[in-house]
């Protein structure tokens, strides 16, 4: 026998036949096809028990109730809460993306201390000792009023605790950012007396005269406004939108009336004049007019004649008259102030003039009208315990009435007027006009303590950062605001344990007060924030903890409302934008871009049109008639008195000639590859203009020029 190639052939054939008849072929074919459908590196979330937690969203002033779907203890989705009286099941894109903030790349994960320009992690104990040490020295030097504090708002128990802290410490310098609610409170105070705010019953009004309010672009409580707008179309109520560009709200309105930016107050004054002249005001309500209605009437007839206002606003005299009469003759008319979202730089004169239209129609505190309602006073703080130093400091005059004014005062002062600054839930180094100067002012403050969840522009300018839990990780009372007619207090509840080493702001303040000891510890005699909250809202705690919210007031407020015309009768000046260039740059509020704290989520940024931002390039809306040979999509340099920026042009026939528009909320400079370093921060181009009547920034626009870049 001889082994030859035929033997090998037999071996090979035998092996092939053996394998072919065995299960190997069929099984491996099946397995390999399965393998290609289940890549092992694809992450698969673990399965578990589904539950829903009720809470309240605090991402914007909308105060919507949310239902958080959880698998075991892990939150996986945010939806609108059906039973919540503000949003009735609705949710906006920022709310549904709220979970992204838990794991945001910018989250501050542990207390931080700045050392030679770099942040280094420290423990909570070290951080509290450091801050308490600084505060102790301030009090030793008899200057407790050199502690200042900026919070986003003064509503709710957390800003209340900051206020409580400041008073107990001995400083009157607690100021807030400019929000729609703060403008409404100030308007109500100017026309009707303090302690009140305004609500607009958009759900029932049959004629809404909006002076640039972005009803579907984030004004007020956004989801409630979306719903009101859908309802409006169904019940046939009219919406007239007065603003310089064809916004989404204007596009959905029954009429869009383009107006020269910044002349809204003049238009409202002229309309008041028409109502008074034509005897179209409500005589019954007029019985409550005080402070010189006749003087006001004489002034508007003289200073705001329709023909003159027509020339200023760019709206024909006939149109002004027709609109005013249609408004006055409607059954349930409402005039809505607050351009865009209604926050930031607005004008008290404009708010007051527009609200005067409401007053003249007499549709106040009636269904489908404007509610002049008390600021909900559900919180009962104990009196802070003060020692002699604190009493002396707290009795001093306030340095400023707003965050804007405080920053300007610090910037302009040669000596350090503020030794230590607390910042909570605000990003003044980004969102105040002219942030370069704001940062310069921050550099002048020796010690800045930031209570924040995110490493934003202001956090970067701080010396110590106390990391705060996000709204999904903590308790907080959330009072409704921003033009809602119902007064509702919601309870935000932790739906997940803190992801990082963070605490609720209330807990951080209580711990800080305890570290300071003495009267501060006495003023904060609560073991933790939850116990504190419970004691601050004794009347509604049961309802809050059971239902997740408590309705404090609904329906028209009772009682007579008096209206005082003194402020307007003196004809306060209309603010003019800074600069003398030929174009007017207006900031645009876009629903998809968040403008305050926190910044937009990665999800929200992804939804922004590429006619607003494309990769890193920002677009500026311009009417082709104004473009003067420049190309659509071409690069230009926008120059204003505050600065300049390289942007691209977006030709838009829906913006008035001579006006250019730029979306707010972009151009962040912090370290988040999904959100920051995209476009330009429009505030960097706008110089603040302080309105004498309010002391607040009224820079609704700025003069700008463009040149090919």
């Amino acid at each position, binding site marked *: *026998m*001889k*082994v*030859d190639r*035929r*033997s*090998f*052939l*037999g*071996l*090979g*054939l*035998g*092996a*092939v*036949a*053996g*394998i072919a*008849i*065995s*299960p*190997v072929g*069929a*099984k*491996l074919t*099946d*397995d*390999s096809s*399965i*393998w290609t*459908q*289940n890549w*092992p590196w694809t992450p*698969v979330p673990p*399965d578990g*028990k*589904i539950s829903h937690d009720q809470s309240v969203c605090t991402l914007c002033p909308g105060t919507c109730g949310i239902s958080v779907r959880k698998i075991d203890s892990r939150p996986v989705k945010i939806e609108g809460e059906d039973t919540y009286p503000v949003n009735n099941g609705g949710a906006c894109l920022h709310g549904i993306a709220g979970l992204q903030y838990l794991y945001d790349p910018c989250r501050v994960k542990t207390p931080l201390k700045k050392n030679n320009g770099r942040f280094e992690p420290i423990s909570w104990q070290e951080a509290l000792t450091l801050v308490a040490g600084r505060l102790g020295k301030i009090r030793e030097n008899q200057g407790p009023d050199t502690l200042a504090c900026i919070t986003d708002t003064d509503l709710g128990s957390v800003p209340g605790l900051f206020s409580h802290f400041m008073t107990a410490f001995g400083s009157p310098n607690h100021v807030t950012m400019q929000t729609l609610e703060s403008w409404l409170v100030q308007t109500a105070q100017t026309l009707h007396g303090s302690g009140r705010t305004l609500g607009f019953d958009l759900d029932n009004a049959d004629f809404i005269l909006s002076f640039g309010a972005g009803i579907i672009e984030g004004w007020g409580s956004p989801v409630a406004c979306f719903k009101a707008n859908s309802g409006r179309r169904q019940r046939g109520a009219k919406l007239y939108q007065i603003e310089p560009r064809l916004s989404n709200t204007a596009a959905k309105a029954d009429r869009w009336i383009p107006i020269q930016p910044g002349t809204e107050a003049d238009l409202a004054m002229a309309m008041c004049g028409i109502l008074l002249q034509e005897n179209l005001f409500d005589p019954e309500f007029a019985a409550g007019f005080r402070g010189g209605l006749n003087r006001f009437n004489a002034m508007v007839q003289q200073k705001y004649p329709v023909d003159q206002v027509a020339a200023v606003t760019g709206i024909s005299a006939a149109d002004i008259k027709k609109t005013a009469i249609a408004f006055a003759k409607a059954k349930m008319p409402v005039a809505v102030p607050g351009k865009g979202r209604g926050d930031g730089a607005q004008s008290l004169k404009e708010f007051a003039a527009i609200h005067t239209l409401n007053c003249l129609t007499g549709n106040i505190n009636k269904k489908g009208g404007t509610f002049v309602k008390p600021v909900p006073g559900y919180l009962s703080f104990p009196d802070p315990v003060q020692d002699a130093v604190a009493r002396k400091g707290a009795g001093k005059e306030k340095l400023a009435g707003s965050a804007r004014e405080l920053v300007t005062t610090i910037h302009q002062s040669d000596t350090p007027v503020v030794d230590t600054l607390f910042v909570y839930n605000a990003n003044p180094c980004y969102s105040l006009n002219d942030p370069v100067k704001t940062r310069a002012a921050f550099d002048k403050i020796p010690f800045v303590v930031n209570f924040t969840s995110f490493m934003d522009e202001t956090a970067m300018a701080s010396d110590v950062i106390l990391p705060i839990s996000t709204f999904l990780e903590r308790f907080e009372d959330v009072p409704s605001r921003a033009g809602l007619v119902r007064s509702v207090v919601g309870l935000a509840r932790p739906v997940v344990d803190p992801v990082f080493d963070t605490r609720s702001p209330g807990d951080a303040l209580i711990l800080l007060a305890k570290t300071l000891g003495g009267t501060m510890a006495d003023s904060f005699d609560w073991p933790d924030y939850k116990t504190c909250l419970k004691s601050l809202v004794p009347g509604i705690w049961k309802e809050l903890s059971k239902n997740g919210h408590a309705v404090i007031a609904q329906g028209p407020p009772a009682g007579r409302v008096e209206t005082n015309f003194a402020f307007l009768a003196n004809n306060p000046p209309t603010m003019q934008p800074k600069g003398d260039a030929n174009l007017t740059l207006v900031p645009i509020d876009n629903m998809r871009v968040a403008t305050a704290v926190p910044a937009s989520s990665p999800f929200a940024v992804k939804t922004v049109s590429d006619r607003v931002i494309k990769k890193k390039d920002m677009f500026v809306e311009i009417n082709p008639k104004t473009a003067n040979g420049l190309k659509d999509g071409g690069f230009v340099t926008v120059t204003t008195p505050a600065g300049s920026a390289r942007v691209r042009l977006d030709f838009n026939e829906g913006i008035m000639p001579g006006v250019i528009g730029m979306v707010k909320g972009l151009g962040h400079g912090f370290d988040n590859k999904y959100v920051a370093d995209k476009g330009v921060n429009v505030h960097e181009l706008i110089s603040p203009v302080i309105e004498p009547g309010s002391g607040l920034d009224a820079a609704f626009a700025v003069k700008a020029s463009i040149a090919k870049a």
Partner: protein
Amino acid sequence: MSEIENKTEHGSMDGAKESAAKDPKNDTGLGLGVIFFILAFLICFLSGWLLFPKLLYSKHEQPFNFDHALHVQETGDCESCHFLREDGTFSGIPKTESCLDCHTDEPMGETEDEAVFAAEYVAKEREVPWYVYAKQPDCVYFSHAAHITAAGMDCVTCHGHIGESTSSRPYEENRLTGYSRDIWGKNIWGIKKNPWDRMKMNDCAKCHEEETGHKGYCFQCHK
């Protein structure tokens, strides 16, 4: 003889010799080829049948033995531990928390396995990392409620007599796909005798066709 003739003569003689060698009676080369064929066939066939499954699947012992028979006897039925939640989702394998309805960190019986459970999982508040024999891949949506409540099926139809087992068999995982061996079935040929022997897509489709008259649509399970 010319050279050419000479060549032809030798050539023909060589040819005659070769044809003698090709005589089947003397063909030892072919015989060896057949033997090699048979040997290789048998080795490969047997390897494919017996050795291949051992290579394809990795074996894992469960964290500790679980006596289903004893628990069924104590609790009465499957639903005591594997129940449908109120919203219709299926609880699957109970969490340690559910076990604590009866157990504590002190063992109730005397088995070593329960001692492991009490010491390692109850006392340390950890979940038992059970291997799940019947786990379907993530691309499959399966509703227990539709089968148990709506179609009135019992557990045994799909899961077999696991409730009568007194110990946990090793879990076998396909090294290539990561699936449990129970999906393809214990039998490497893919032959099934009982409905619970195999649970591939065709098995779902076959039962659906028999019971409902239609195999079902893709999106019913692959959402």
